[in-house]
Each structure stands twice: as C-alpha cells, then as structure tokens.
C-alpha cells in the first residue's frame, strides 16, 4: 500500500513518535556516519599528567557536587583505585611500577563522550543525547532510572544516586556542556596546569596526537586510545606505556554500540510480518483437518444408521410370519374341537 508523508506524519503523531520526519532519504540511505564534523573533544596526554587532582577540584566546584570527605589537595586518595560515582564526575588514578615508565603514571577517568554513545543507544526514553558539540548530555526529566545505560557503558562511567528514594538521577560528566555553550572551556581543561588536557576539534586533536607520537617516538606508544574504540570517542588518550597497563580495556573493539543491538532489533519487524502468516496458516490447516475429520464422522454415522434400520425391518417381517403360522394352527385346533363336540351332541340325542 502506498504511504503518503501526510498519513505518515499522522501515524507518527498518533503514536507519539515525536520525531523530525522529512529528512532527506539519501542521507538516511547512507549507513556510514562519521559523527558531527565540528564536534570538539579533549586529548589527555598521560605523559604530561602529574596527578595534582586540580581537575577533580574544578569539576566538583563547577558542577556544584558535594565536597568529598578528604580535600582535593590530599594526594593520599590516589593510593587506591577509584571510579566515577554519584558525587564525582571525574577521578584521577595513579599507576605505579609499570615497566617502561620511570615513576608513576596518572590517568584521568571521566565520560569519554563516545561518538556513538552506548548509553544513548540503550536508553529507552532517549534521556541521553549526543550533541553536535560532541558532548553526551543527560536529561533527568524523562529518566525512569532503569540503569540500563550503566549496563551498556563499556567504560563503567555512568553512576546512580542509589540513596535517592524518589528522584534518583544518573550522574556523569557533561563535558561542561553549559560552559561550552558560553564559549568557555571545560573546568578540568581550564584548570590543568600542565596542559595534559588539550581542548579542540576532535579531528585536530587526532592530528596533534599523531604529530606528538611521530616527533617523540621514544616517549609514546603508537596508539591513540579513543580514535576507534567503540566507534571512537571525543575524549582521546596518548600514553607512554601500553594502555592496558593503565586499566584501560584494549579489547573493546571498534563496533559502535548501536550496531551491537541493531541486528536483534531488526529481526523484530520480521517476526511481526512473518508470525501472523505462519501461525494463521497453521491454524487454518489444523482447522481444515478438524473439518474433514468432522465430515467423515458424519458420513460414518449416516452409514451406520441405514445399516441398523435395514436389520430391524428384516427382523420384524420374520416375526410376523411366525405369528401368522401360530394363529392358523390355533384355528384348526378350535375347528376340530368344535366339530368333535358337535358330533358328540348328536350321539346323545340318538340314544
């Protein structure tokens, strides 16, 4: 059946899809998406990071997060590995005794702002949004709190307010999206004394990362983490030691998150199309079987009946014959009797 866009819109509205339709088909037709061209990112050069935790402090202040029990200039916090949680968008971890490195290496952890965010792909209310700036933002006003995003995130970033009874939110770095909109730098980038965090267009950052690796081959490993991981992230990393030594998964693969489930989801319409046909078909077939069975039964019954009646008649007629015969004999006997009597009477009169 032919679908006009008008009717389409009608349905969309009806189903509350709330999607902007009328996007050029060819754009939708091409399945190869390279992300927002102007999107910005941050390059974390771990050979520069000195683990001063200034970024943590700035982040905490800018996002108005509760103050931690240990102050930010207390570096003993670095003694144990931490992850982002409901009150911290970013943490710095220290990694000691890695061979090939003189002294400890520091790594900043925060949302990597994937080009194809797993959280967004997983969210069933579209609470997450990949903005054209590159930041992955979160909208608590629709969030149901199912925490599927936390399951989906390969970097263990989103955190949840487990102690909020009624209005728990997902907590995660926003790349300081509001500040970006005001043309300001993300808090951590701005404060970093050593420019271990370089801020710029993702494409430029990759160029710079490559340049650094080429110019100082003995200082870097030949890999830009985040260039391809999980389809690429807007937060990129270069390091002097293998990333796996810094607790960064190097086995994540390059498949963007939406692709991981799209196959399964694509089979859903197939079911909707195929099952009714098959099932109704089976139903019809079984019905038909019943019908035929029923008809056969009816005929059988009829046959049986006729047979039965025939037998009955024949029995009857036989019975009648016998009855007649008996009757005759009786008659003869009577007659005989009568005659004898008569003769007997006659003899009495004569004597």
């Amino acid at each position: 059946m032919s679908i006009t866009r008008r009717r389409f819109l009608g349905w969309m509205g009806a189903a509350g899809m709330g999607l902007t339709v009328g996007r050029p088909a060819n754009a939708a037709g091409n399945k190869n998406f390279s992300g927002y061209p102007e999107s910005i990112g941050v390059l974390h050069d771990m050979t520069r990071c000195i683990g001063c935790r200034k970024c943590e402090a700035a982040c905490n202040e800018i996002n108005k997060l509760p103050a931690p029990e240990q102050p930010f200039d207390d570096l003993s916090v670095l003694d144990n590995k931490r992850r982002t949680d409901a009150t911290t968008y970013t943490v710095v971890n220290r990694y000691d005794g890695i061979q090939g490195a003189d002294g400890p290496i520091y790594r900043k952890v925060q949302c990597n702002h994937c080009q194809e965010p797993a959280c967004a792909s997983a969210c069933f209310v579209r609470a997450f949004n990949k903005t054209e700036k590159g930041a992955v933002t979160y909208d608590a006003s629709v969030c149901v709190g199912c925490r599927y995003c936390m399951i989906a995130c390969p970097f263990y970033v989103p955190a949840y307010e487990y102690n909020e009874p009624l209005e728990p939110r997902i907590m995660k770095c926003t790349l300081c999206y509001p500040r970006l909109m005001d043309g300001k730098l993300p808090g951590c980038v701005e404060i970093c004394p050593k420019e271990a965090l370089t801020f710029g267009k993702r494409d430029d950052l990759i160029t710079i990362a490559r340049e650094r690796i080429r110019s100082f081959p003995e200082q870097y490993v030949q890999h830009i983490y985040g260039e391809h991981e999980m389809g690429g992230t807007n937060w990129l990393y270069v390091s002097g030691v293998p990333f796996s030594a810094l607790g960064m998964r190097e086995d994540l693969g390059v498949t963007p998150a939406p692709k991981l489930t799209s196959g399964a989801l694509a089979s859903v319409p197939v079911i909707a199309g195929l099952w009714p046909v098959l099932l109704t078909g089976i139903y019809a077939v079984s019905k038909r079987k019943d019908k035929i069975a029923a008809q056969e039964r009816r005929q059988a019954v009829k046959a049986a009946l006729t047979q039965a009646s025939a037998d009955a008649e024949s029995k009857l007629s036989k019975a009648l014959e016998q009855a007649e015969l008996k009757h005759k004999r009786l008659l003869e006997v009577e007659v005989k009797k009568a005659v004898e009597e008569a003769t007997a009477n006659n003899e009495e009169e004569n004597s």
Partner: protein
Amino acid sequence: MMSEEAIAGNKSLFTPFNLVAGIIVLMGVLLTILRFTGGLGAITNLSDNNPWGIWISFDLLCGVALAAGGYTTSAACYIFGLKKYHSAVRPAILTAFLGYALVVLALHYDVGRPWRLPYPIFVQQGTTSVLFEVGLCVFLYLTVLLIEYSPAALEWLGLKKVRNIVVKLTLVLTIFGVILSTMHQSSLGALFLIAPSKVHPLWYSTYLPVFFFVSSIFAGLSMVIFESTLSHHYFHDKMDDTHLKENRHVTFGFAKAACWVLGGYFVMKVFGISMDNNWHYLGTSYGLWFLVEILGFVALPCFLYAVAVREKNVRLIKWTALWTVLGIVVNRFNVSMIAFNWQLPSSERYFPHWMEIGVTVFLITVFIIAFRFIAKRMPIFYEHPEYRDTH
C-alpha cells in the same frame, strides 16, 4: 492491590499457610516502605559497577521466562488445534497473567521512578533501545493476557454478553500473544548484546535472543507441568472430570514437546560456542560452570523427559519439569549476574542483600495468594456449568 486482599484473607482464618503468608507479606510491606524512603541503596547491594541485581535476574528474566506457559499452551490449543489441551489453557493463562503482573510490580521496586514506567511508550520513545522493545511488548502482552484471562472473571461475575464477545477474540489474541512473546522473550536476551566487553564470552553470543526465546518455550511447558502438579495437590476438589481426564494428555504431550525443544536448544548452545570459537574457555572454571549448565540443566532434563515419556513415568516427568525450571533460573542468573562483570575483581562483584531476596520472596508470595484467591473462586480448573462446550 493483591496483597491487601491477601491480608484481608489472613484475618479471616488462621491456617498455617495464611500465617506464613501473612508474616512474609508483613515483611514485604516493611521492605517496601524502606525502599521508597531510603532508596535502592537502603535495601540492595547494587553498585555503580553492578546496576542490575536479583530483581532483574530473577523477578524480570526468570519471571517472564517461566510465564511463557501462557503463550505456549494457548498456541498449542487454539493455533495447533490440539483440543485435548484445552483444560490446561486457563490455568496457564492465569499463571502467565499473574506472572507478568508480578514482573511489572517488581519493576516498580527496581527502577528509580516507577511512576514513569509508561514514559518510554507514551512520552519519549528510545526506539534504538532493546529495553524499549521489551517494555512495549510486555505492556501489550500484559493487556492481551488480561483479556485472555477475563472470561474466567466474567463468568464468575456472570457477565454473559461481554464474556462471549471476548471469547470470539480468542484466536486473534492468541496469535498476538505468540508474536509479542517471541519478541520480548528474545529481546530479554538481546538486552545484553550491548555489553560484549562485560559478559563472559561463553554466555555472550549474537544468538542470545534466540537462546532466550527457545529456552522460554520449554520453560513454559515445564512450568505448566510443574504447576499442574501443585494444583492437583491443592485444588484437586476444584477440578472437573474433563480437567482430570485431560491432565494426563497434557503432562505427556508437554513433556514430549519440552524434551524435543530442549534437544534443539542444546544443539544451538553448542553451535554458539563453535561460532565464536570459544572452546578454549571450557577449560577454565567458568567453562566448567558453563558445562554444568548445558549438560546438567539442558542435556540431562532432555534425556530424563525422553526416558519418562517412553516409560510413561509421570513422577519422573514432574521431577524433570521442576529440574528444567531450575535450569532456566540458573541460565538467567548466569547471563545476568555470574557471567556479567566477570573481569572485575571479586571485591567489586555483586551478591544480593537479604532484603533484596526478601522482596522477591514477598512478591512470589503475593503471586501465590492471588493465584489461590482466583483459583478458589473462578472457573479455572473446571468449566463453568453455564458455558459447557461453548468454546
């Protein structure tokens, strides 16, 4: 709503069942209060690394899988035209309906803002999410089940007309039921497709949706057998001759079917390993556990069913049904808990808090109470005298 009725029921008579149930319900109510005053943190061991716990693993995944009896039975009876299973349909439908209702109820405890559960369907649709698909299907299927179940209630209430209209819809509803079940049963498996880096390779497979769907079939069948066993124990008086007569058919027919599906499932599991070439993992301790699952809880019941069916051994069938049901629980727990986050150090792994388990127990009790309430009053195990042979 069900729980209150149950409590009301408790007051009336003090049978041991009612006492135990009463206590559990009381505990449940307390935990509920804790949950909605203190948040998830107050009564669960959930953490940022382990956002999903036993409420998802058992209440959602197992709940839905074990409620699959509804669509399997009705499909067998109405679509495949196996009339002799007719008496099994209503109990199955009831189980399914209550099961799904329970699942939804459980989700109210798990999600952060329960009153927003309709959001994905009515407010803002995240169509790329597998969870959206699950939500949509569960919502629709719950409705379908309600309608499918309603005749029983309507007969009880004596609303002839409505009841007859509803009964006319049976076929459509059944087909819808099967479609929706296929979708969301498989999608529950597809939920984990997005986290290949977190689920152990032995359990992660692109076949996950298929595995979940197929396993739901024999889960449903076995559940019907198992549940009918219990019903015979407790509601024998409620059962009419047809039910008792047909029950044997049901048991053997379903056992045969379950056995066959189990076989197929086992084969597919093996394909799963070979497709991803995960043989070498079988040597590890996870591999051992995986073998326990597919040999002990898939191959074994498959074999036992076969033996039982051949030897016309009802006892064995019933045991095996129970075993298979256990197997499903094991499988769902493996995928969603044991194999999930397998790379994290044991210190960061999840183990349920007793209060979480408490809530689950509470919900199951509510289910039983509700089932009991309905089975005692409505024509579930018998046909309503006024409606004989009207289907």
